[in-house]
C-alpha cells in the first residue's frame, strides 16, 4: 500500500482507492458540489447558500444511503 502511494503521480495515475471501504466516500464531494451549484442558482441571495447547500447535501446522502440499503435487501432477498 505504501509503495503504491509513493509511486502515485497525480493526474497521470488513477487515484489508488480500490478498497471497498474507500471509494464509496467519493460520492460526498460530488454531492457537495452539486448542492452548492444548485443552491447558488436557486437562492435569491448568496448568504443563504452555505446553510441550504449543507441541508440538501445531507438529504441527498441520506436518500442515497437509504436507496443502497433497500437495493441490498432486495438483492439479498432474490439471491438467498
Amino acid at each position: 500500500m505504501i509503495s503504491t502511494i509513493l509511486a502515485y503521480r497525480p493526474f497521470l495515475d488513477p487515484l489508488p482507492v480500490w478498497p471497498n471501504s474507500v471509494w464509496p466516500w467519493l460520492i460526498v464531494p460530488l454531492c457537495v458540489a452539486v448542492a452548492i451549484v444548485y443552491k447558488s442558482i436557486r437562492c435569491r441571495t448568496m448568504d443563504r447558500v452555505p446553510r441550504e447547500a449543507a441541508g440538501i447535501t445531507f438529504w441527498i446522502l441520506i436518500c442515497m444511503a437509504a436507496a443502497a440499503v433497500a437495493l441490498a435487501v432486495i438483492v439479498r432477498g432474490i439471491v438467498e
Partner: protein
Amino acid sequence: MEEFSPGKPILVALAGWILPGSGYLIIGQRSRGITIGLTIIILFFLGLLIGGVRELEVPGYGPTANKIRVASRGGYGASEAYASDDLEEGPWVMTRHPLDEIRNKPWSIPQIMMGPIDLLCDMWSLQASQRVSEASHAIGTRSHSRTNEIGVLYTAVAGLLNLLAIIDSAYRAGQGGEAGKAA
C-alpha cells in the same frame, strides 16, 4: 432598469462556456459567479485526479492517441466500412462519421460543456496517451473499473452543471439583470 440587448444573453452564455461562472461576472453577480465557477472547476479537476487525465476519451483518437481512420472492406460500400486506430492510411473518422464516433464516446458531450478547460485537458490526455517509443508505455496510466467510472462521472457532472449555469446566467442577462439582482 437596465436596457435589454438581445446580444447580451449570447455574450453571457459564451463567456460562461469559455470560463465557468464568468457569465455571472458580466451581469454583475460577482459572488454567485465565483462560487459557481470555482465549484465547477474544482469538481472537474477532482475527476481528473480520481481517474487520471487519460479518462478523457477524445473523439477521433484511439487509446494510444493515434487518429482513428476509416477503411472499407473489399469495396462493399460504406455499410462495410470499419474504423481503427491501427490504420496508417484512410480518411479520419471525424471527417467521415463524426456522429458515430461521438456516439461511441458519449461522455465527451457533457465534458465539452467545460469549454477550453476541457479542450486543453483533452490535449493533455492525448499527450499522456502517446508512447514514447514503440516498446515503451505511455506516460499516463489508464484507469479502469470504479476509479474510471467515478472520475468520468465527476467530469461529466461538472460539464452539466456548467451548462445549467450557462442557461441560468443567460436567462438572467435576458431579464436585464432583474432575476436574482440581490446576489
